[in-house]
């Protein structure tokens, strides 16, 4: 099948890497895009070509999700690499960076190799391993970043943790620079946020829950940005949530061009009010903030301060979520709803479609040096065919992921992935 040429004709192609946002047809041969025909003209059909009629539909480069937690190895009951990849395919995600927060922590070349083999044998989308910055997330001894990169790691990160030791972080950044490895960090000051479980403010006060101030994110972020400027390293602020964080990033950009940032789709779509009465699926890290912060995040994506949007997919089971709010784990799944939730921002007039595709595909590929993010001739045929207006309701029964902790259960979306293709093979098709 994959050997036969494929024509995707009549659709609306959005590919910021080629500056295309209009009608175009694609010819795919041997798993790669071999020609892009702009405008309405017929691309022609090579002998024996399979035709996909995309009239009335949008064709996008496959999404690349740079922050995905998987339960394998160690917590396969929550998610395996295979199940995460199927969820990804259902959401139009053709490649994702897998977080090293597994058991054991991915901090050794043999483990990177193990993950890559598992992915090769079981995943339907591209899986790119990331690795710990310090051994076992211990916060002190550096991992073998050179060997890890050679083994296939695309990014170094402390996962859900923040590096506490300034000197360790400085050395990690300096050392990673020599190997061209991006260091991606979440920033939570463990003292300022101690005991906190949601955004500090009136909502938390009403619920009697201890709050996490915005400064718990901003203070370590500012520290990280200063060290990034000092070392000139490629630093990626992985999950911003506050207006002050966006401001800090903007001023850091003036000093170091190598600094980039991401935001989770949850922090662009939801706010602290969604916690309602102790709904643990809305317990996230960083916590959902106030509506002003959500709007500031959207503005930061629009003006380029924030480069990428991630799902921050984090499968949790009933054993970690069916608990009192203060005792539940952070995290929500998000692969399957990533595009649909992002389209809300497009339909709501908050972000343009081409900016969304940039943040969901082109920029993550560029920042982490991944294939994909483009459908120019010669690129792998990793793409999505979507109906941007198709209405649907998220229901637990339809969730592909092994865990069901979605904050979008019951959400009404306009826009759904119809087909997802990886290297010219269809890996998801909506019935």
């Amino acid at each position: 099948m994959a050997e036969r040429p494929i024509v995707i004709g009549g659709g609306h192609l959005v590919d910021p890497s080629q500056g295309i946002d209009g009608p175009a047809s694609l010819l795919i041969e041997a798993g790669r895009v071999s020609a892009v025909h702009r405008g309405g003209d017929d691309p022609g059909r090579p002998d024996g070509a399979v035709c996909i009629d995309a009239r009335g539909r949008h064709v996008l480069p496959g999404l690349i999700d740079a922050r995905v937690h998987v339960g394998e190895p160690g917590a396969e009951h929550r998610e395996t690499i295979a199940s995460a990849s199927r969820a990804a395919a259902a959401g139009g995600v053709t490649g994702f960076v897998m977080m090293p927060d597994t058991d054991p922590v991915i901090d050794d070349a043999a483990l990177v190799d193990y993950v890559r083999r598992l992915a090769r044998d079981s995943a339907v989308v591209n899986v790119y391993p990331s690795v710990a910055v310090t051994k076992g997330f211990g916060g002190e001894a550096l991992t073998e970043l050179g060997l890890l990169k050679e083994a296939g790691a695309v990014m170094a990160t402390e996962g859900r943790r923040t590096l506490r030791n300034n000197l360790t972080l400085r050395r990690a950044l300096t050392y990673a620079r020599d190997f061209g490895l991006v260091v991606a960090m979440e920033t939570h000051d463990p003292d300022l946020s101690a005991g906190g479980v949601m955004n500090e403010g009136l909502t938390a006060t009403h619920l009697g829950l201890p709050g996490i101030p915005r400064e718990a994110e901003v203070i370590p972020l500012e520290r990280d940005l200063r060290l990034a400027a000092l070392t000139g390293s490629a630093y990626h602020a992985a999950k911003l949530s506050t207006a002050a964080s966006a401001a800090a990033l903007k001023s850091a950009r003036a000093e170091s061009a190598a600094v980039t940032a991401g935001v989770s789709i949850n922090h662009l779509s939801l706010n602290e009010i969604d916690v309602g009465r102790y709904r643990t699926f809305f317990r996230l890290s960083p916590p959902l903030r106030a509506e002003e912060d959500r709007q500031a995040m959207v503005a930061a994506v629009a003006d380029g301060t924030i480069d990428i949007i991630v799902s921050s997919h984090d499968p949790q089971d009933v054993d970690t979520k069916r608990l009192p709010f203060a005792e539940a784990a952070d995290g929500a799944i998000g692969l399957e709803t990533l595009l649909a939730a992002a389209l809300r921002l497009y339909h709501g007039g908050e972000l343009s479609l081409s900016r969304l595709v940039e943040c969901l595909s082109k920029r993550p590929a560029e920042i982490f040096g991944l294939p994909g993010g483009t459908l120019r001739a010669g690129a792998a045929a990793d793409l999505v065919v979507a109906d941007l207006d198709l209405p649907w309701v998220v229901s637990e029964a339809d969730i592909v992921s092994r865990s069901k902790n979605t904050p979008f259960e019951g959400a009404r979306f306009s826009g759904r992935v119809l087909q997802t293709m990886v290297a010219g093979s269809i890996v998801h098709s909506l019935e």
Partner: protein
Amino acid sequence: MTPSAAHAFRHRHLLAIADLSAPDIEFLLARAEAAIAVSRQINKKKAVLQGRTQINLFFEASTRTQSSFELAGKRLGADVMNMSVGSSSVKKGETLIDTAMTLNAMQPDLLVVRHHAAGAVELLAQKVGCSVINAGDGAHEHPSQALLDALTIRRRKGRVGGLAVAICGDILNSRVARSNILLLNALGARVRVIAPSTLLPAGIERLGVEVFRNMDEGLAGVDVVMMLRLQRERMAGALVPSVREYFRYFGLDAARLARAKPDALVMHPGPMNRGVEIASEVADGPQSVIEEQVEMGVAVRMAVIEALIGEGRNPTDG
């Protein structure tokens, strides 16, 4: 029958004052007034809840609240069983929900639950088939405490509406403060909170209270002074530096009480830390109604229990 007593109390659980309307509160207070007499008779036992089972499930140690609920249930004729965390399987790693489901299978009519996590009692109420009373969940709510406080005030002052009530101390960590702020506002009192800024939660001024950081100013002219217990662990958390300093600025002694109206009531939900938040001269003085609060506690809890599972109540209501 008073108009408030004719009001139908359509709640299956008592989880939070936030769920109650002013008529609901008036209804419970009126029923509690009637229940006071029962406890003052020689024969204190009614049979209205004969055959009903009440389980007190306390994940957090409490002597007075648990015994108050126990006595309330027994005086109404219910069978009351106490389960506290020390003797339960919670310590063996069983989750809150599993514990709740196990107890639920024993077909109780009422669970009275205290838990250290905000929202835990509500979570449990979603999973069981019987009525649930929140006997305190983290720093969220303690509705029966606010009801007994209101009953005490009303019996002494004849009303709650229009009175100036100062709530003093660790507002940040207090479920009693949250329930009282909601209830007193619902009944039309003017509520003040007095605390050092480190013990005030974010956004407190938007809860309909006047905020004071100076006790002398905050107490000026108030009708009721409600003191809160200060946990000694707060010193370790850098919220207040020392007992000595706290008492100096936020402790209630006779001189400070003189700022309030001459007939102002002194209240405390207990247990008191004498010399930390309150001086003995005031705790045991003529303006203190602290012991009366304990008596009203039993009456209020009898009223609540009967309203939830008494005669004519179908447990599947509302």
